[in-house]
């Protein structure tokens, strides 16, 4: 895509990788203002440091996967980015402007939508009601302003249009109750809601964790169609094949900070897992080295 993405010389890392790894490398990605950026985030819980100066960068129109071992501080990072917690130190920038979130509502008002692992859907309510839950539309005129009457029809129409445009064709009716839907369909409802109201970006927490093969595929398609609409996506996932299938870049989180940012096309899955566990790391030139600093043969060498 951008010229900075192909540095050649087998460096094999995206614009964000340099910014996180070596000093002075940030210039590589400066051509484009990141949609979201975090610098030096710190969060401590008593003696435990969950975030130890974490950096983060989301480029326009990309799917950025965030991976990390359990306890790497990945979920703390996501909570900071989605407003669920306030970091002790560091700053978050949205389109280059510093912002402070005190609650998920703050983040949402600025156009950041989060699809939680629990989905946050009301099972006894229908799809249309769930899409507009907490953001109901009232009717125009006196009925809406004085009698506070909801515009059920308009909300149903908009919900149907949203599902259609994202290619969610499997639900029978927009008035179907969410608890009658399969896991993948419920996920689709939650994702559609985020895509509908997200103006800046969408955060998805383990969207395929509870799904079978077919439904995972559908959800991955959904994630792509959100990206193709121009809305960048932060995808938190443990599932490496899924990450490699959809992600444009992969943010590897380790020990409370960003260990590397890589492109799935440049690395094998095993290498990324090694980055995650610390068996490998990226050196100053963005090349894979093992714990002793020996170079690791990368893909081009293999060919």
């Amino acid at each position, binding site marked *: 895509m951008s010229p900075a993405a192909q540095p050649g010389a087998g460096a094999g890392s995206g614009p964000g990788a340099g910014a996180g790894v070596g000093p002075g490398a940030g210039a590589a990605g400066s051509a484009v203002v990141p949609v979201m950026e975090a610098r030096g985030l710190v969060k401590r819980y008593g003696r435990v440091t969950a975030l130890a100066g974490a950096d983060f960068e989301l480029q326009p129109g990309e799917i950025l996967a965030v991976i990390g071992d359990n306890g790497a501080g990945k979920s703390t990072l996501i909570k900071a980015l989605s407003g669920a917690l306030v970091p002790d130190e560091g700053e978050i920038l949205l389109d280059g402007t510093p912002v402070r979130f005190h609650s998920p509502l703050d983040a949402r008002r600025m156009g950041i939508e989060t699809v939680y692992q629990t989905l946050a859907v009301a099972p006894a309510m229908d799809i249309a009601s769930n899409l507009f839950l907490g953001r109901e539309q009232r009717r125009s005129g006196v009925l809406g302003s004085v009698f506070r009457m909801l515009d059920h029809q308009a909300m149903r129409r908009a919900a149907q249009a949203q599902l259609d445009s994202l290619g969610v064709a499997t*639900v*029978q009716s927009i008035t179907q*109750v969410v608890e*009658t839907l399969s896991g993948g369909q419920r996920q689709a409802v939650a994702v559609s809601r985020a895509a509908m109201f997200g103006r800046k970006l969408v955060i998805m927490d383990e969207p395929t964790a509870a799904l079978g093969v077919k439904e995972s595929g*559908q959800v991955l398609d959904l994630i792509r169609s959100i990206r193709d609409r121009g809305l960048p996506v932060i995808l938190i996932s443990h599932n490496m094949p899924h990450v490699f299938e959809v992600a444009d870049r992969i943010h590897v989180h380790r020990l409370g900070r960003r260990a590397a940012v890589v492109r799935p096309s440049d690395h094998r899955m095993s290498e990324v897992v090694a980055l995650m566990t610390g068996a490998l790391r990226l050196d100053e030139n963005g090349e894979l080295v093992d714990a002793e600093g020996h170079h690791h043969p990368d893909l081009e060498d293999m060919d």
Partner: protein
Amino acid sequence: MTASVDRAESAGSADVTRSSAFGGPGGIAQRMLRHPALGPLGALLLAVLVFSLTTSTFADVDNFSLVVQQTLVVATLALGQTLVILTAGIDLANAAIMVLGTMLLARVAGGDSPLVALVAAFAVCTLIGAVSGALVTRVKLPPFIVTLGLLTVVTAIARLYSTGTSWPVSHPLLTGLGKGSYLFGQFYVTPGMLLMLGMFVGVWYLLAHTAWGKHVYAVGDDPEAARLTGIHVDRTLFSVYVLAGLIYAVAAWQALGRIPNADPNAFQNGNLDSITAVVIGGTSLFGGRGGVWGTLIGAFIVAVLRSGLTQAGIDSLYQDIATGALVIASVALDQWARRRSL
């Protein structure tokens, strides 16, 4: 692109197979969950039919009017109870609040100021609702505990305030809800009936057609999901208890229309009777499902059973057995439908 379309289609056909099974949208369990008042309505019509055929006195316009009048107070209490139960709460104090309301109406009006008495009763009942709401949302106590405590406290306050006797009420403003006129010759219609119907329509409108109503259902269905979608869960809960308190004040007014005497020992089972009506009416004790029309039908089912069994000459203790069995059957049915649909 082609691959993804294929995948969507094949997954779609799998979903269709799934939904055509028992729990799907066409299933009995699903229909029950979507229209929770239909079952109770059928039961009510069946009860009316059976008693009309088996007794000579039940199917009588006068008797019907009497049944409605007898149902007024419990139905109004149950309206407030429905709101609380929809949020997965329970209100054990509603009848006690109402009884305190009747005491206030009677004693404050003693100084020839019925309007002041009305305002005082409405203010105090609403305030106690606000106290319940604050304890549930601020102190984070379970509604069962909050309202159990308030039941004891409010009952004691009402008895202290009554000085141990009952207080007759005579002012037409305070007893007028029970003074009606005959419609079509025989059916006795009171302002209280119209007021009750109006309140049911009002609360139905709030629940079905405003964002507040959606939020009440969502909070009862899954409070965490409601919070994450930006609903002010505590504010919604608090408003439910306040509105319920206001409705209990109306119930107090209704009660004096029926019997113009404020008795501190009246309606001792009013709380349980209101829960019975709500549950028989198909509103789930787990919150998030049900509605006011089911409650109205539930209240009438209890009243019709009582009236019909009395006309049939059956001991009132058997009526209790029938009512109790109906409660258990209703909840069992609700549980079954929920399991089927999940």
